[in-house]
């Protein structure tokens, strides 16, 4: 094997890192004018990584999973599928961004470079099979995110969001690090396989503390209740394209990292973390739903919606079965498209002067003003609410199927009953757009890229999305099984 193989397996990350560094140099010497070209180059690099990972996925499906650099980094079906989602989401965010900042004259080449570094970090998070790799990947993506959150330098809300995210994110990293030190102390290793072996032989109270701290820190990163408080503020304050990014790619990475952590190193001790996950799942569903009801700001509302969705994802994790892991990935895939679509629609919603329209009053009567946009949002909202035949239903379906198959009927019943609360504000969207009388007439002009992202997302969440299920299901099943194939 040796270095050649390790380099081959990590070539997506290496390629993205080199591209990022080169583009950083380019942007340092060319200034603002080259921002658009750098964006295109970054998107192209991500696309290359996407294609490479897709081919890798094909290999890993045939069982060609492999460790790189000893036991630090692992490429398997699970990591490949997660990375595919991450790269898709990042590319979409790059497409959505320039127009937003162009109007303010704030767009700079650093933005795509930061996105690239964040993507590298996220790739490491999902592939990490050692707590050290995990932490480095996590910090790499987080640091880029803090800067991105405050990228609109002239906007005090953006700076506030960045600072808030940085302080609370730093706290969460500290908690994770503390948990890692405890886990290391009680198992004597940072390797996932080693931890699992050590915990199988001895799992004492101190180790439980370690596990709980690590999971609590990760729960912060995925914005699960009770570690969700930063989400609405950061989502609202950050520039909308950045919010789109936070709600999609890092969410996928953090959830995938959590799933791998739960099933690989802590997989033998599922009894000790299941209760935590069940609580976090139900609390996220309920808090995410109740918190959103009173919101007038659409970005805050979508922040609560993402908390709500994390709750459903965690139900799949709580099942602690290969089906559950597969359900998590399927849900994540659908969630990414629903999120990208919703935010793309929000970004299209701007009046000619470039003022953002982000409250319910601004979309009143949208169905008569811009029927295409309204129908797209209608599909996305009913999909988020999980109403068949839209594709969002399939995500909820597989998650709850996994829970029922794991004999967790009470969890499934309470979770699905609470989803009705969430349906309230999703249908409020539809009510405002379709039932209310339109306010002043505005026309929307948005670049083709925005409409393309929106159209693609709507196509996926529409009933046509079910055509993806054989393919998506097969990959997710393979990915779920790899987590349980650890000796």
């Amino acid at each position: 094997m040796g270095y050649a193989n390790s380099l081959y397996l990590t070539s997506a990350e290496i390629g993205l890192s080199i591209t990022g560094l080169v583009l950083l140099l380019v942007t340092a010497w060319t200034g603002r004018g080259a921002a658009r070209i750098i964006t295109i180059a970054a998107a192209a690099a991500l696309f290359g990584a996407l294609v490479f990972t897709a081919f890798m996925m094909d290999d890993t499906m045939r069982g060609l999973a492999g460790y790189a650099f000893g036991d630090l980094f692992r490429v398997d079906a699970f990591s490949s599928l997660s990375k595919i989602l991450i790269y898709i989401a990042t590319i979409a965010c790059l497409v959505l961004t320039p127009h937003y900042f162009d109007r303010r004259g704030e767009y700079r080449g650093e933005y795509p470079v930061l996105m690239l570094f964040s993507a590298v970090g996220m790739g490491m998070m999902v592939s990490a099979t050692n707590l050290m790799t995990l932490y480095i990947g996590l910090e790499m993506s987080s640091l880029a995110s803090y800067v991105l959150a405050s990228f609109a330098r002239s906007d005090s809300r953006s700076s506030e969001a960045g600072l808030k995210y940085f302080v609370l994110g730093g706290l969460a990293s500290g908690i994770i690090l503390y948990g890692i030190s405890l886990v290391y102390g009680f198992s004597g290793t940072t390797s996932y396989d080693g931890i699992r072996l050590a915990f199988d032989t001895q799992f004492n109270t101190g180790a439980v503390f370690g596990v709980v701290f690590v999971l609590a820190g990760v729960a912060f990163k995925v914005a699960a209740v009770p570690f969700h408080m930063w989400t609405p503020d950061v989502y609202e304050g950050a520039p909308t394209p950045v919010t789109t990014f936070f709600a999609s790619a890092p969410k996928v990475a953090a959830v995938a990292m959590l799933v791998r952590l739960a099933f690989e190193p802590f997989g033998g001790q599922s009894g000790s973390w299941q209760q935590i996950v069940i609580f976090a799942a139900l609390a996220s569903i309920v808090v995410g739903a109740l918190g959103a009801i009173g919101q007038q700001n659409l970005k805050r509302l979508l922040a609560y919606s993402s908390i709500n969705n994390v709750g459903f994802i965690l139900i799949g994790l709580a099942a602690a079965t290969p089906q559950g892991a597969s359900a998590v990935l399927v849900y994540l895939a659908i969630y990414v498209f629903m999120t990208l679509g919703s935010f793309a629609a929000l970004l299209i919603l701007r009046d000619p002067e470039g003022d953002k329209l982000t409250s319910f009053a601004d979309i009143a009567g949208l169905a008569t003003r811009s029927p295409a946009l309204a129908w797209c949002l209608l599909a996305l909202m009913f999909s988020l609410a999980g109403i068949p035949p839209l594709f969002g239903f399939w995500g909820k379906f597989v998650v709850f199927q996994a829970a029922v198959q794991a004999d967790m009927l009470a969890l499934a019943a309470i979770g699905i009953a609470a989803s009705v609360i969430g349906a309230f504000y999703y249908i409020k969207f539809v009510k405002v757009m379709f039932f209310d009388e339109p306010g002043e007439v505005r026309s929307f002009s948005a670049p083709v890229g925005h409409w393309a992202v929106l159209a693609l997302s709507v196509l996926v969440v529409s009933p046509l999305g079910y055509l993806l299920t054989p393919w998506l299901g097969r990959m997710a099943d393979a990915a779920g099984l790899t987590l349980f194939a650890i000796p």
Partner: protein
Amino acid sequence: MDFPILSIMLAIPFAAAIACLFLSGPAARMVALGATLFDLALGILLWLTFDIGGAQWQFTERASLFAGFQYALGIDGIALLLIMLSVFLMPICILASWDSITKRVGEYMAAFLLMEVLMIGVFAAQDLFLFYIFFEAGLIPMYLIIGVWGGDNRIYASYKFFLYTLLGSVLMLIAMLWMANAAGTTDIPTLMQYDFAAGAQTWLWLAFFASFAVKMPMWPVHTWLPDAHVQAPTAGSVILAGVLLKLGGYGFIRFSLPMFPDASAQLAWLVFALSMVAVIYTSLVALVQADMKKLIAYSSVAHMAIVTVGLFAFNAQGLEGAMMVMLGHGLVSGALFLCVGVIYDRLHTREIARYGGLSINMPRYALFFLLFTMASIGLPGTSNFVGEFLALAGIYRVSTFVTLVCTTGIILGAAYMLYLYRRVAFGEQKNADAARMPDLNLREWAMLGPIAAATLWMGIYPESFLAPMRSDIAMLEARLAPVSPHYDSELAVGTPRERAANYVVAEEHGSEGAH
């Protein structure tokens, strides 16, 4: 069956719905009417080619889809009749909205055509999850129909409708997942023969009950219905009363009774209790309504209670009666909503006190209204008589008390319907504007005439409707036989007398006259 008639019945309105989204108002109306009439023609073909007494499931189509899902369609006699009801009412609904809907016509017609697809799909689905998808997807078009084209308080009504029904059905989804897991199949005909453990049956039954009781609707979860009915446009009310309420009853027949017979028997008391309250309570509420649509909506709840009582009688009369009430009520309450719609279109109020003496200036209208009022009361010769009589005969064998209460409901039904009719059609013409209203036009004739004919047909020759479902009801009765309850009015077989009563005892010593 080589010709996939059910799929075509689904595909045509679906294609028309998509077309309507892109068409202007008049064109959308024509397309919608054409598509629904074509579906009606296909429905008639379906009925004519349905082999009565043949295989239980006919016109079956089966195709494996993704992830273990099955696209499985097929109908038995029960589903056939309910599909007929849907395709029969649909063109009438389109006609009813011909002039009254003026804004966003294309979207309106698309929503209705989508409803038709989903209703046919629900009745024809033979896969558990396919059923669920059709069942649940109906929320989206109905939410839009009420919310966009409804009355003044439409937003409250649409929210209530959506959230009530959603809460009911999500629990059913969990139960379905459990069933698919336990039985290893999602095929409805197989599940209808599958015996679940008695303990699990209770929970499954309750989960399904949560959904069907809301859809039915049963007291005390009926409160969405008056709001939704009142606020929906006329055609929306017709679809709600005519077909959507039948989904609850259909659910009981298709799922609760055959799949969980033990639990059904065990919890029949609950259904009886709720139905008895519903019959009396909603009838009394209907008596004091000032709004015509609300009155008819409450009467629907009362009629549906007769359906549930008939279903849980566990005998052939009760089950057949329940089906006949569902079909009859679908026609009659739909027609009554159309009657309200006819005068609403003219005067734009549903308040009973604003009308009066309509039989003077609108005699033809008054005649139709009278026919449907009588049918709603259950006058012999109309559709509802057959159903109510059978259902009550069925339940009489189980419990005299329940029958007594339900029959009282029918008397109250006569009271509120006749009272309504007297205030609207008879008496003096208090309101000048109401007195000037013109009689029915050709379009309204075309709406009410066919329903009147069907109502009379069902009342005079119910055999046409009973025959297709007879063997299915018999099968269901056989399935329920082991758990059927103790009958308190069962025919008691006594010890026969040795001699007939009029037997003249022969004197041993000859007649006295011989002395």
